[in-house]
């Protein structure tokens, strides 16, 4: 019994040390963001702020505010569009049998595993040609398309878990393809949409490659703005940390509120479809 208690204590000690290490960056960001230009000094990076204030955060917001708008304007429509397409695809691929279904699913799924550098040059040319280069609608299109593989996978897994008996009754009543989708599947899809939407929102908000390749000021999303601020020689690093904090808040809030669904999205690609 004593050994067991010792083991239990040891487990908690290791867990707490690990948790502290994982939260270390949060600590650095928070204490630094709350310091003002006058009190920020490299030697006291780890110290708590003597006079905590929001001056740095206000300064960061002045730099980032517009990009915040861009990121929301980008992430919300792209999340909804890619989730809607994923739902339709997932329904088709999980509840109906047609020739070549597996081949088509393979073609869709491989889109998950491409290094986006391999499509970047044509992508820029095409976006330029159709007048969507350096615009948020252009990024919405890009994230919608490249989001299709993961949303399709999420919804296909989700719908596969809905028993076919549920569809059977509707089929016997003579309800057609879209009728079943609309009246049987969609009402059962709420948590599927939550998983897909959270995952897509997080990915699109956090994306840097497409943002930096396809936009210039003033159309840049927050991630690009953050890198510009961090790379600037003239901006104090308490403001840089405050910017990093601001950029992370939306996805962290989503994670804190709906973490369970985020983890389901995280595991979607890892669990056999």
């Amino acid at each position: 019994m004593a050994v067991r208690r010792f083991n239990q204590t040891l487990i908690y000690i290791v867990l707490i040390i690990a948790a502290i290490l994982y939260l270390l960056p949060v600590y650095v960001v928070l204490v630094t963001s709350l310091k003002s230009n006058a009190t920020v000094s490299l030697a006291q990076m780890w110290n708590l702020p003597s006079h905590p204030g929001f001056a740095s955060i206000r300064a960061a917001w002045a730099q980032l505010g517009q990009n915040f708008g861009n990121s929301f304007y980008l992430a919300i429509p792209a999340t909804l569009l890619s989730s809607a397409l994923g739902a339709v695809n997932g329904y088709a691929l999980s509840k109906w049998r047609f020739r070549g279904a597996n081949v088509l699913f393979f073609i869709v799924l491989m889109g998950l595993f491409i290094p986006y550098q391999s499509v970047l040059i044509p992508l820029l040319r095409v976006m330029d040609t159709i007048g969507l280069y350096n615009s948020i609608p252009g990024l919405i299109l890009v994230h919608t398309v490249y989001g299709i593989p993961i949303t399709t996978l999420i919804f296909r897994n989700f719908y596969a878990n809905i028993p076919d008996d549920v569809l059977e009754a509707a089929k016997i009543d003579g309800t057609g393809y879209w009728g079943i989708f609309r009246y049987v599947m969609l009402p059962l899809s709420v948590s599927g949409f939550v998983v897909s939407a959270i995952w897509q929102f997080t990915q699109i908000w956090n994306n840097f490659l497409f943002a930096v390749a396809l936009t210039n000021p003033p159309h840049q999303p927050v991630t690009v703005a953050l890198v510009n601020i961090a790379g600037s020689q003239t901006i104090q690093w308490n403001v840089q940390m405050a910017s990093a904090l601001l950029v992370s808040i939306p996805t962290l809030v989503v994670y804190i509120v709906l973490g369970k669904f985020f983890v389901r999205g995280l595991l979607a690609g890892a669990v056999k479809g």
Partner: protein
Amino acid sequence: MANPVTPAKATRKMTARRPAGRIRGWDNRMAFFTLIPSLILLGVFVYGFIAWSGYVSLTNWNSFIPTLTWAGLRNYTAIFSSFRFQSDLRNLVIFTVLFIAGDLVVGMILALLVDQKIRAEGLFRSIFIYPMAISMVVTGVIWSWILNPTTGINLFFHALGFKHVPAWFLSTRFAPSIHLGQIDIGIPVALLAVVIAAVWQMSGFAMAVYLGGLRSVPEELKEASRIDGAGPWRMFWSVVLPQLKGTTATIVVIQAAASLKVFGLIYAMTGSGQDFSTDMPNLNMFQTTFQGDAFAQGAAIAIVLLLLMAAFTVPYVLSMLRGER
């Protein structure tokens, strides 16, 4: 957490009970039609663009003006003989191996700890996974401060009385230093700082997958080994770990894919580094193409990356689909 068995079961049941009647035939075709818009989009944006990039990589388009004359494999010989791309491949291999190893070990330790019927399990899990919700560029910015040799974590080492503190990502050392042709194929010490940041960001994924795996190891197996007198270590190595082979393979593939895509983290944290000690093919491609206007060479780098990616993801996805039948 999703149950990996159910979709397969569902599929089997569906084929067993074929819906009768002419309407169902039409509906099955409808399922195919609804996929068409997505297939067209992916056909253009993924497969079409890849083919286009492949074509560009075989041309002379290495200036601002698109010169689409045939160059054969000249761009490939150019990149493979360049100091930068050779360094990139070294970095990519070393980064991928260390990053995956770190992820597997840290992820497994965390999963085992969390699996000990502890209190506040949900809280600990959330703490280990939250970095996954943060942008790689945020991670890069924050960790470049934490691992800044003159500030950051080194202040602790100074306070503890250490005279020699790590230079982290500003290190110019190779350990060991092994010269091969024009590059050093040892481990660039600077890259280790990036590995630390990447493991911090991504190990929650390995933990989550392992945790699911640990919980699906049949109780009877553990019970049987307990009766045979196996201690906890013995049981872990000879019963639990072999059961998690498939889980480990999955993590390796997903994380290798993530490693091949690493871009924002490097861009925000270190850039190419001294003598390209922290450069990556992705960053090289981006700069070669959009800052150096060497589009054909950039495309060649991208195609090499794509082939590397396909080499292990195609078998993975195929086995994933086959596993369902």
